[in-house]
């Protein structure tokens, strides 16, 4: 039965795909094929060549504590094929997504940050696809005309003109990661590739433009099973930059969780250092308090500890956030500019520690 459906689908896709570019349907076979498609449109995840309108089944989501990437706007979708069934709720770590799941993340810039919602230019769209042999990551880079995004396995450096909210023009030296660099962050304790963001604690928030909790919407879409009846009782990290959403320490730890813990947590790429910035870590020395560095090199900046309570200027953590030198800056990948608001948040957090 399954075999027949497969061939019918393949037939339909090849006929329709060949007949007309205007017919869009999610191509399950392309998504699960060993080799990635050359262009994003081949997967049928969007209804238009510019990927402005998602196909049916793609659910928009946001995170409480997104990773900073050179001020890029990020548009995230989750897709789980009906036959794969829902993801399983779990308190810690990333939701257990079934084979066939696709996470779609588009990085974009507005023509000017004076109007952040207008004239949005797409830069790249990354797909994380849960294939039969595990998760794979593929970066697709958009063309100038915004009509096509092409696979770039070796990554790419792009110069992106931006206008900041104060009207000043700038060029961002944006780096599209190569597939290995993707893995540099997206790797779990078993060395397997894994998503980072969609954890219960990050997803637990009101859905954009709706009254429901995001987790509830995912449940309604058939994308989530299990967990407490009232999903708002689930664990949650606060929004780092929303002063009404938690005290300074909780918000700073949420920021570090979102921006650092994919490497800096036990079993992950930067655990060599013993600095664990995941939200659950409660041993002070391990989340940086008076912790000397191990292999920071000049990244230590002549400072003695990661967090010197009360003294941001003596804290390696802040020094590395406040740099764009590749031998110093943290995170090592994903940014070429400084997250000024993030630096301020952590500066204040350390300053007020005692």
């Amino acid at each position, binding site marked *: 039965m399954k075999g027949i459906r497969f061939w019918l689908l393949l037939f339909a896709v090849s006929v329709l795909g060949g007949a007309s570019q205007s017919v869009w349907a999610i191509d399950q076979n392309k998504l699960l094929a060993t080799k990635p498609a050359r262009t994003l449109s081949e997967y049928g995840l969007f209804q238009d060549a510019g990927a402005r309108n998602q196909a049916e089944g793609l659910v928009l989501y946001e995170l409480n504590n997104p990773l900073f990437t050179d001020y890029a706007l990020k548009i995230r979708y989750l897709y789980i094929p009906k036959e794969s069934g829902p993801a399983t709720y779990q308190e810690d770590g990333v939701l257990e997504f079934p084979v066939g799941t696709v996470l779609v993340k588009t990085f974009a810039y507005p023509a000017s940050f004076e109007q952040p919602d207008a004239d949005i230019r797409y830069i790249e769209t990354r797909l994380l696809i849960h294939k039969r042999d595990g998760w794979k990551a593929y970066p697709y880079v958009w063309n100038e005309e915004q009509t096509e995004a092409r696979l770039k*396995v*070796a*990554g*790419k*450096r792009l110069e992106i003109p931006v206008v900041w909210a104060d009207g000043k023009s700038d060029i961002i*030296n944006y*780096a599209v990661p*190569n*597939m*290995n*660099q993707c*893995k*540099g962050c997206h*790797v779990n304790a078993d*060395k397997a590739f894994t998503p980072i963001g969609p954890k219960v604690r990050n997803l637990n928030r009101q859905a954009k433009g709706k009254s429901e909790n995001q987790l509830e919407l995912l449940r309604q879409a058939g994308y989530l099973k299990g967990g407490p009846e009232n999903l708002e009782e689930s664990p949650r990290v606060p929004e780092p930059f929303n002063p009404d959403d938690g005290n300074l320490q909780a918000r700073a730890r949420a920021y570090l969780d979102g921006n650092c813990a994919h490497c800096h947590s*036990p079993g992950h*790429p930067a*655990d*060599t*250092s*013993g600095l664990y910035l995941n939200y659950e870590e409660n041993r002070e*020395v*391990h989340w940086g308090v*008076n*912790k*000397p*560095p*191990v*292999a*920071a*090199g*000049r*990244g*230590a*900046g*002549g*400072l*003695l500890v990661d967090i010197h309570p009360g003294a941001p200027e003596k804290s*390696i953590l802040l020094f590395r956030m406040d740099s764009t*030198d*590749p*031998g110093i800056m943290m995170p*090592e*990948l994903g940014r*070429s500019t400084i997250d000024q608001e993030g630096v301020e948040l952590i500066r204040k957090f350390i300053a007020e520690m005692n």
Partner: protein
Amino acid sequence: MPATFLRVQRGMLGIIATALIILSGPVLADDVIRVSPSENAQEEIQEALILAEPGQTIELAAGFYKLTDGLSLDVANVTVKGAGMDKTILSFKGQKGGSEGLLVTSDQVVLRDFAVEDSKGDAVKAKGVDGIAMINIRTEWTGGPKSTNGAYGLYPVQSKNVFIYGCVAIGASDAGIYVGQSEDIIVTKSRGEFNVAGLEIENSYRADVFDNVMTRNTGGLLVFDLPNLPKQGGHNVRFFRNKSFDNDTDNFAPEGNIVGIVPRGTGMIVMANENVEVFENEFYGNDTVNIVVASYVDEFEDENYQPTPKKIHIHHNKFGKSGMDPDPGQFGTILRETVGTPVPDVVWDGVLPLMDYLFFGQAEEDSLALHDNTHLDGVKPYGNANMIMHVVAPIFHSPDFDMAPYAKSYPSLPAVDVTIRGRPAMELVAQ
């Protein structure tokens, strides 16, 4: 023309592979991907590293490759081979991103016959792998010793079956060759110059370090154990037939790094490890001291950590003229003040947990063993610096030069086996 070279190569491989599949079923992936220097070197090498299949070799032709981002390899059982450490040069002088030159995260990888120069961070790092061979690799910061140089040259960490042979490391602002949090390690026939630490084994189990030459570093050979790390309790390390001499470069580690404590002119430091055997080495021309056996004295919060060295066995070494002019920094000064100059060839800091220090002394079965070493006339072979008293109550301080309590021997540690691709690692060298 060079930009299309790789593509053409791969196209041809594809055709050949397809033909073989048709003719004979499965193909052994024993083919070679060739890359030559070009304007597009970054993308071509990285693409080769991503698309390589297990069993393949990536050959980097002789020449100077200008790279702008860190390279990384995550495919198992791949060989990356250059034309020689002075012929195939991967230069990261213009690096804009990625914090190391080359990062390996897959098992059974062999790197050989090329150089990595001027990376912004570490030069060659392997993390969390089983089986990594670095053969005839040079890592160098070409501007000489500077605190802005990257931390480590050759840097396998949290790995098993580590093999470093015939390598050269120059100018690292921490350690030229640094193996950390790893198990089953051989480092041999390698050379370290103008690094803060020439060669360092840290928080690791079972290492054989032999036939290496360390000169003109701040310190030559280091074996450390540090607290608050996923892997600690470093033990069973042998250092033999190495030469550590004329280490005379001022410490240029950026402040805050633990190697910042190493005084200029240190032959060897053993810190907080257990079961270290040091034999048949030569130490001379080191301005501060030939060997220091020390405790980790910084504050730490880690109940599992053992800060004092135990069962350090030093025998059949040859000690030449050293310790004449200790570094004026903190550690050198305290040596000068406690044991005087010329500083004895082997110095123990005498630091013990306070109760042991005050009442019991060190347990007999943990203490230093010193025998059959060759010393120059007029130099004290051994000194206990008694540093606790020096710091706490200097007027009651007195060093102890009596070697008699240490005239004993521990059984020799077993040789380390390193297996890569199913065979003893040493067999890889001839290939």
